[in-house]
């Protein structure tokens, strides 16, 4: 029993957040408009998570900012306010202004690997993604659906995902992530805007991956 629990714990904590968030970014960019350097994508999300064994659905919502070459800001507003920031250097979680989690890319190299996938997708290069997933798309540019399945189901990390289903039109509308343990989540994206104005203020500061002096 212990073993069954322990393993996902270890793997998930280092990899899963990155995997999930990266697939979101990937979806946004590979299927939607490709961003040029200096452009940013702002939008809102609604996420519903179904955990096996929990009676109610865990629903959260908030906004996000994606900047090529810099990273992703995932700002949850409901049920609590938290900030998750992924940069090539680290994953950080900030609650009420204090950093409650900091995973250094140097210590957890998956971050760099998945960041490569993210950046690859920004410039329309699918090869990094195809290294880990089988990518199948159906439909046309107005309404499409892409299914990602792990290339190596035995892989202790990618194998935790059953599938990632991304659908949309001009933009990505939703992402469904199904895990092998029966849990699933649905993310819907709204009010997406591509902006040519560089990030300023807090957003620029959060994505500044240079070490603080």
């Amino acid at each position, binding site marked *: 029993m212990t073993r069954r629990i322990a393993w996902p714990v270890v*793997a*998930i*904590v280092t990899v899963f957040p990155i995997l999930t968030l990266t697939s979101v970014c990937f979806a946004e960019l590979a299927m939607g408009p490709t961003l040029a350097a200096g452009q940013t994508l702002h939008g809102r999300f609604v996420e519903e998570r179904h955990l096996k064994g929990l009676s109610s659905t865990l629903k959260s919502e908030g906004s996000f900012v994606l900047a090529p070459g810099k990273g992703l800001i995932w700002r949850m507003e409901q049920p609590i306010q938290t900030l998750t920031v992924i940069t090539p250097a680290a994953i950080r979680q900030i609650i009420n202004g204090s950093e*409650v989690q900091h995973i250094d890319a140097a210590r957890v190299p998956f971050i760099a690997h998945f960041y490569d996938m993210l950046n690859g997708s920004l410039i329309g290069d699918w090869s990094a993604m195809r290294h880990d997933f089988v990518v199948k798309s159906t439909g046309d540019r107005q309404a499409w659906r892409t299914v990602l399945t792990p290339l190596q189901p035995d892989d*202790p990390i990618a194998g935790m995902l059953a599938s990632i289903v991304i659908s949309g039109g001009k933009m990505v509308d939703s992402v469904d992530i199904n895990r092998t343990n029966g849990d699933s989540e649905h993310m819907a994206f709204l009010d997406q805007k591509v902006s040519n104005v560089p990030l300023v203020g807090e957003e620029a500061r959060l994505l500044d991956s240079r070490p603080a002096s």
Partner: protein
Amino acid sequence: MKIAALAWGLVVAAACVMLLLQLHKGVKLQTDMTALLPTEERDTFGQSAKDRVTGILAQRVFILIGDDDRSNARAGGAALAKALEDSGMTAAVTYRIRQDSLKSLGAMYFPYRFGLLTAADRERLQQNHGAQIVDRAIASVYGPSSIADANLLQRDPFLLIPEFLTNLPMPVAQLTPDDGVLSTRDGNQTWVLLVAQMNGNVYSGAFQERFISAFNATEHKLRATMPHLQVLRVGAIFYAHAGAKSATEETTRLSIVSLLGTIVLILIVFRALRPLWLTLLAIAVGVLCAFAVCLSIFGGIHVAALLFGVSLIGISIDYCLQYVCAGFGAEAGLPNERLHQVLPGITLGVATTLIGYATLLLAPFTGLHQLAVFSAVGLLGSFLTIVLWLPFLDRRKPLLHGALILATANLLWEFWAAARYSRWRWGLIALVAILTIVGATRLRFDDDVRHQQALASSLRNQESQIRRLTGISGGTEFLLVRVPDRDGALQTEEALQSRLTSAEQDGAIRGFQSIAQFIPSIARQREDRGLVHDKLMLPYLASYYQRLSVTGGAQADTDTAGFLTPDAISDDSPLSFLRNLILESDASGTMHVVLLTGISRPDEIRRIAEAVPGVRFVDPAGDVTRLLGEYRRRATILIAVSVILMMPVLIWRYGLRGSLRVALPPAIAVLAAAPLVALAGVTFTFFNAMALVLVLSIGFDYAVFCRESKPSRRPATMLGVWLAMLTTLLSFGLLVLSSTYAVHAFGATLLVGTIMAFAFAPIASDLDEGF
């Protein structure tokens, strides 16, 4: 004379028998540098621990195999791993890691989760900021970085174990398992890691040769099919092998040049080789006596004392050459008469040199004691051989062919004596003075043993590349934790941890590794459980579960299993490397090791070690560095002391003014040598100081020879001095070409010092010009 010669023969024979008996019993040459430390500074207990840890560290090799093609890198790694396994020279080869190794890690920790807090979480709870942990858990459960299912939420509601696991300082964290092999990517290149533990003595020449040739053969074979394959290596065996190889090649080259040069020189001057044999005989008898006496006094001898001792005995060549040069000229007389001509000079030379060597006894260092006894006994043995045996072995008639050679040799004398060279003389003195003063401003001391060795630069590049790609570095420094009980050892490490972490942030060290970073002490686990129970579970659990609608109650009592101890680390655990850090754990006490890497400020680490009871800083390289510094200071002081001790003998013979004249050339040589070599960027080390001991003796010899020489025999005396200088340069001066810095510094100092002693030797006499 005959009786004395026979008696000396008996003494030498006795020494020979004694030495043979000793050799038969087996002579252990000491090679450990710390054996040279003063006895009171030695710590046998720490020493054995140090030997064990450095042994383990030295036996480890890290190999990175890289290629643009991932499959090539992997094929290369697998082939090399197999070759090493099959070689019979490895105790363990780690290439493929268990796919479920992380899983086993999780399984080991999970039952003890409520006693395992990260430093940051512990601080949060201590400061009553448990709400931050709760919020973090809620964010994790809701957010895209979900890590929980219902089962986990019941067992570890606040997701403490994932937090703990991500914060473990895993040693090769920059590498990720890729299909069972630890790998990393750098640009287009894929690198795979291979770690091997040798099963033999990596400092043994035979073992090195077997291992390196097997390794190179495999690499060569792999390159034949995969030409772009790169193999990076780091490990003591590679450095030791490269060092031994280049030292052997260099020694062979230098010895051949030195030997040929000496033979040619003797042949040109004497048109016979007999003087060479006579000289070698005198030195050989000296070394024999020295060895026998040293073994019976000290029971053994340190290899460093032996090497320097043989060099110091080598000075007896000066006396021998004085004797054989006395054979020049029709008026040279019979061998006995020749000896009598040079006897005052060489006796005084030996006397001053003996005083110089014996002065080394004044320092409280075993190494210098051995050196003093070895060189003094050897010198005396050589001297007696020259005085008692050479006249009997040398049956030659006076040499008549050397008019030109003698005239040339006498030019140095004329340079100092003749009025026409007056300006040149002052010019030379001014030049030496100016260069010495300029050099003195550039003189730098350097005792760092790491600078004294020549580490192969290609291996150093590979090491830094491996460090960049993997974070692995081959440090040899560590802290030794020694306390009565096991948990005490972990608690001590915890006390060190916070201090070392801030030292790491300050840049005093690059990193450290201790067991307590992975397995907290029972005391800490107990304390953490209390914190989790009182400051997290009690105040927050109920509302937290309600919020997440977790039903079925919590299995979250905080007092389930026992405590995690280092025993839980199994052989095939990814943490099995930690077992090397436990040196002893039994009724007699516990001894742990905390490895340190990239120490830039050793003093800070020493202070940390002193602040925590039961901890000692062990820095093998630093110990040797301190030792070299101490020896350098002592040797430098002893040079001055020995000059003072030599003076009474000289004053007795030459009066005050004469003795000061005799002391002038060696003083100039000793004072000028170090600043002059500093002009060429050579720093002052213990090895320079040893060279100066030799320069001082050489300087007094030349000066005394010049002073004692009758005007009629002056050309022969000067020839002896010339030859002494040239043979010294050929044997020791050539060492300036060595790529080992210590040897280079020794050679450079000796080269310049000997030339100075030679050039100024005539001013020891009362020259006509009033010099």
